[in-house]
């Protein structure tokens, strides 16, 4: 088995009294799109900055492509592409010049670089805008330029720190498709975002972190199984006796029931056939019912259950 592309062990980073990373662990295999989820201030960006050697850390080890990552590990840096949260491009350079500049920080050969820049422009769908200055681009195009600048040198590891912030749904979809395409072409991706549906859509594995710690890691399905709530059933019912509600509560895998405004809500903690079982009971009892809804848990539910619902900075 090959070594993980990124391996972080017991990483500790302190900002004076504040512990930004508290024995943080991470292991990312080759070919993964790895999601890093966490509320604001949970330590996601700090972790990424440490992995990129932009920040010195107090304790722990970081290995990239099986080698220790240090500020002077230029052979490793050459294989990493970074797309920062903030758009980092030169206002005074055109789209082409910007991509060429950042690509040139990794590739010296002019003809190879030219090809890479053209590929990145095509990848980001910026062909029509190659001579535009960043200030003339829309928010979505600017984000795409930001990504193109980070991936033009065809890196094997791409780190994207919230690349879809303040982007319209079309551009977001385009960006997500692009990331998936990069992954299919052989790049390992680390993706941080606040948007759970994005992470759920593209990431093969996810780590949820909070207060500098890794709280849970696994595929989205594995994470969903980790939480108590696995299915919510809502049924429009005209009337229900308390005894009937208690009987439903006593059915297998049901741990909470409520009846308000003619709506019966049932929370299940796993198991199969929960919905038919409830509907059978209602039919047996002669309770008339209307619309029926069944919701499976989302990553958002997992996130909120693991990190709590308290507001963050």
């Amino acid at each position, binding site marked *: 088995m090959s070594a993980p592309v990124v391996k972080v062990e017991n990483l500790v980073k302190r900002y004076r009294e504040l512990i930004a990373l508290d024995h943080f662990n991470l292991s990312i295999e080759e070919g993964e799109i790895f999601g890093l989820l966490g509320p604001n201030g949970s330590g996601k960006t700090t972790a990424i*900055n440490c992995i*990129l050697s*932009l920040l010195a850390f107090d304790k722990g080890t970081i290995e990239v492509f099986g080698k220790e990552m240090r500020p*002077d590990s*230029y*052979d490793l*840096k*050459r294989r*990493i592409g*970074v797309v*920062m949260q*903030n*758009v*980092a*491009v*030169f*206002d*005074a*350079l055109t789209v082409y*010049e910007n991509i060429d*500049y*950042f690509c*040139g*920080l*990794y590739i010296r050969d002019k003809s190879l670089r030219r090809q890479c820049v053209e590929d990145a422009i095509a990848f980001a769908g910026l062909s029509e805008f190659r001579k535009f200055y960043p200030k003339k681009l829309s928010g979505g195009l600017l984000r795409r330029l930001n990504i193109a*600048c*980070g991936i033009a040198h065809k890196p094997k590891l791409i780190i994207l720190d919230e690349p879809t912030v303040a982007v319209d749904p079309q551009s977001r979809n385009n960006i997500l498709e692009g990331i998936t395409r990069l992954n299919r072409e052989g790049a390992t991706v680390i993706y941080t975002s606040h948007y759970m549906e994005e992470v759920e859509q593209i990431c093969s594995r996810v780590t949820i972190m909070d207060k500098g710690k890794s709280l849970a890691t696994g595929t989205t399905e594995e994470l969903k199984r980790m939480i108590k709530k696995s299915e919510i059933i809502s049924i429009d019912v005209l009337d229900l006796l308390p005894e009937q509600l208690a009987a439903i509560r006593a059915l297998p895998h049901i741990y909470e029931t409520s009846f308000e405004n003619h709506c019966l809500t049932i929370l299940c903690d796993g198991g199969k056939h929960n919905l038919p079982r409830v509907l059978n009971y209602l039919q047996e009892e002669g309770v008339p019912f209307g619309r029926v809804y069944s919701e499976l848990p989302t990553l958002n539910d997992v996130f909120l259950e693991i990190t709590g619902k308290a507001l963050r900075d």
Partner: protein
Amino acid sequence: MQLFKAFFKIARKRLGATSIYFIIYAGITVFLSMTANDFYTGQFQASALTITVTDEDQSAASAALTDYLSSMHHVTEGGGDRENVLDQIYYRTLDYALTIPAGFEKRLLAGDADSLVSSLVIPGNTSSYYVELQISEYLTAVELYLAGGYDLTSAIELADDTIGALPVAETISFAKNTNTLGSYLFYYFQYLPYIFIVILFSGLAPILITFHGRALKARTDCSALTPKRRVGELSVGCILYSFAMWVLFLLLCLLLYGKELFTERTPQLAILNSFVFLLFAVGLTLLISCFPFDDNILNMVSNIVGLSMSFLCGVFVPQTLLPAPVLDVAKFLPAYWYIRANNMLASFGEEIFDMNFYWQCIGIQLLFAAAMFALALVTARQTRRQS
């Protein structure tokens, strides 16, 4: 050479704004230096005044004094009553009204020299002061000959001869440097400190601030570019940019004032002086570039720094006209020493050329430049730590 190329691509994009500064300031400098007259010493020339003489004595001595004044000024006899004379003086149709009182000759012969004549003048008028000097000089000469035993006629003749034979005063310089900077070149170099600061602040500082921007810097730090190479390429860019600007000003100067700029020693010293100040200006620009100022704030800072330093140190106003406390403060600014050296090279004002003092001025400017570079380095390191 990605950074280096990007540096000059950005510089080229900003060339429009920078060249406007260059053209405006170069235009003003050239206009001022071309229209500048020679310095004060060459601007004096004798001029005839309108004088009225009221001779109440009607003697040979009073007639001789009137003739003496007539030889230099437009003299009319009498001026009417006192009120009329005052009106003429008020309306500047008359510069000087002399009254030779009765008994003038008698008092002159008796050796009573005090208040021999009376006058009405325009208050504070320097020309009137010179007429009084001429009268005093003439009467003193006559008195001297009378005291020496000559009769009045002989004394008057001898006084006329003596004053007429006075040698023409000629200004001589004790300076070792007789080949001074011409007034055109003097003014050209005089305004360079302000131009350097404004152009470097508006042209070079924004480029450096762009590269020091947090997000861009982080992205560059993540790349395979070594810090040594990054600093090296930016430094070469800075040096070339500043040097090119300096050379451009020298070429403009060469175009306007000819090749003696490089062949004569004094202009060479002025060029060296401007180069040393350029080093300070670059150091100051590097320091300013450590802060994330936008274009508007940079403009404000360049105006505050450039104008205040220029006014305090005598770039726009000659140092001889600045009050002593201002000059005391200005001594803590490099532009003061630049201007002192420039004044000295042109023998402007009270400055006398002294090679030792010239090197002292250059040395002080170099110290300021070194201090700026050191401060810029410390600030850059501190900013990096904070981010």
